[in-house]
């Protein structure tokens, strides 16, 4: 059987196996808890002590500060890092690797399963915040909602994929991935200047800031900034994702995993 027909089939099987495992794991439970926080905050902000007149503000603040900047990277790293690293750490990688399937399908299947769980969590979280704030007076514009939720989902794809690739390559991958997402990114993205363009957050923000960055200006705590237009930045994110995916698949196919005994 050739690789073209074999890869999707094996990926699908691995995907199903890992999905069943991820869905019932304590990791997913922790994920649900974390994903529930932005909607919870939105609800509290509008109902307790709030004047109910700031649907848009609440949406933008929670969406950017909490959902896009913390929840998406954190859950992305947390769920994505395990794609291969979990199996090498648990030393179970031997089982799929001694089966007649392309090795890349193990990476793909497991990452896709994590991505599905992650996307459901992020979508639910984003939709929750949107639903709560849309009911308030002065709700966020549908474009902003679409843009931000879309950006969050794309963030999930990129962070989880990046973490998965780091997990394939490095032994202590999680520290590197966390360090990148929380120390490096946060620093780069929030310092004005062209260094921003090195961070994923910059492109993700470009997706929802609106034509002249109007949505961004409503976030007063951030410096005003010049962004790319949405289509160009989404294009670049896609290219990044494709490169990461290729690196992941090739590394898994080529790399010898030496398991500690």
């Amino acid at each position, binding site marked *: *059987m050739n690789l073209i027909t*074999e890869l999707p089939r*094996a990926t699908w*099987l*691995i995907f199903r*196996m890992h999905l*069943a*495992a991820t869905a*019932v*794991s304590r990791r997913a439970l922790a994920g649900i808890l974390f994903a529930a926080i932005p909607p919870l905050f939105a609800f509290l902000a509008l109902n307790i002590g709030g004047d109910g007149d700031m649907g848009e503000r609440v949406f933008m603040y929670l969406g950017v500060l909490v959902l896009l900047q913390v929840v998406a990277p954190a859950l992305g790293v947390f769920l994505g890092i395990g794609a291969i690293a979990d199996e090498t750490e*648990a*030393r*179970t990688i*031997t*089982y*799929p*690797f*001694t*089966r*007649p*399937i*392309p*090795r890349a399908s193990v990476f793909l299947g497991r990452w896709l399963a994590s991505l599905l769980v992650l996307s459901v969590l992020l979508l639910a979280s984003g939709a929750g915040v949107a639903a709560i704030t849309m009911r308030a007076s002065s709700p966020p514009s549908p474009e902003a909602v679409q843009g931000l939720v879309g950006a969050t989902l794309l963030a999930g794809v990129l962070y989880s994929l990046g973490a998965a690739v780091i997990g394939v390559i490095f032994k202590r991958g999680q520290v590197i991935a966390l360090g990148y997402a929380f120390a490096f990114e946060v620093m780069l993205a929030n310092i004005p200047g062209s260094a921003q363009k090195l961070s994923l957050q910059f492109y993700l923000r470009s997706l929802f800031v609106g034509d002249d960055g109007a949505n961004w200006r409503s976030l007063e705590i951030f410096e005003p900034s010049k962004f790319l237009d949405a289509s160009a930045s989404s294009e670049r994110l896609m290219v990044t994702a494709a490169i990461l995916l290729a690196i992941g698949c090739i590394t898994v*196919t080529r790399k*010898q*995993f*030496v*398991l500690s*005994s």
Partner: protein
Amino acid sequence: MSAIVLAENLGRWYGEVVGLGDLSVEFEPGITGLVGPNGAGKSTFMKLMVGELRPARGRLTVLGETPFGNRALHRHLGFCPQQDALYEHQTGRQFVRDLLRLGGWSRREADGLAVRALERVGLEDAMDRKVNGYSKGMRQRTRLAQAIAHGPKLVIADEPLTGLDPIARRQTNELFRGLAEDGCSVIISSHVLHEVENLTETMVLIHRGRLLAQGSVREVRRLISRHPSRVDLVARNPRRLATALLPLDHIRTIKLGADPGTLTVETDDIAAFHSAFAGVAAAAGAGVSGFKSDDASLEAVFDYLVG
């Protein structure tokens, strides 16, 4: 007979640490025991055979194929790894079934094969329980089940008997014999030599990453001439027996034991001793009641070679 595993100058290092030095060996169909002291390279060799690692030097073919990432080979290969790792959230049945499905079987077929394999390893009562509740021996047998479930031509098992209680061990040995009868080749590694010895005559002994000996224990023993063989005898009248044995020209020493009635003989040619003994003992009439050469055991051979 064609070789199922063929290694030529095979080597694999972990950084500066040698896993396997320079190994050239051929495995023939049937059950083969891969023995050697800790750190001899048994596990590295097995990982190379199943394609978990790539050789750093030399050539290795298994069933005529190079193992690393070779899907065609993995269809015919079953591997029972040494590490006690399973997918903890699954039941034994799910575990074996899911792995079978990766081999292309439909859900129904895979389930049938999984149940059969689990029955074969004696887990039929426990197969619907989660593996994290299994005892060590049950986990070991689950690993074995996934290695045999797809009807492979070659089963490679790394220390499959470690941690098993005697009952499970007896069952596992029977399982290996059954597999061999069905025409499946089996390579098992072990430290516990007398168990491999119960299972097969054919051994490959490696030490420090090199081949030290191969063949049946008995043959290997014959090849080692630098050590005389030792024979322990028990007789009512040991001195008379000693006198009768002394003229045999391959006898090197005869020693009366501390316990009354015991006698230890060292001989340069154990086969000649075996063929001469019955006649000499019958003629001497010394009342022989025990006769045993410890050196024929695998452990003794192992000690000579490694020692």
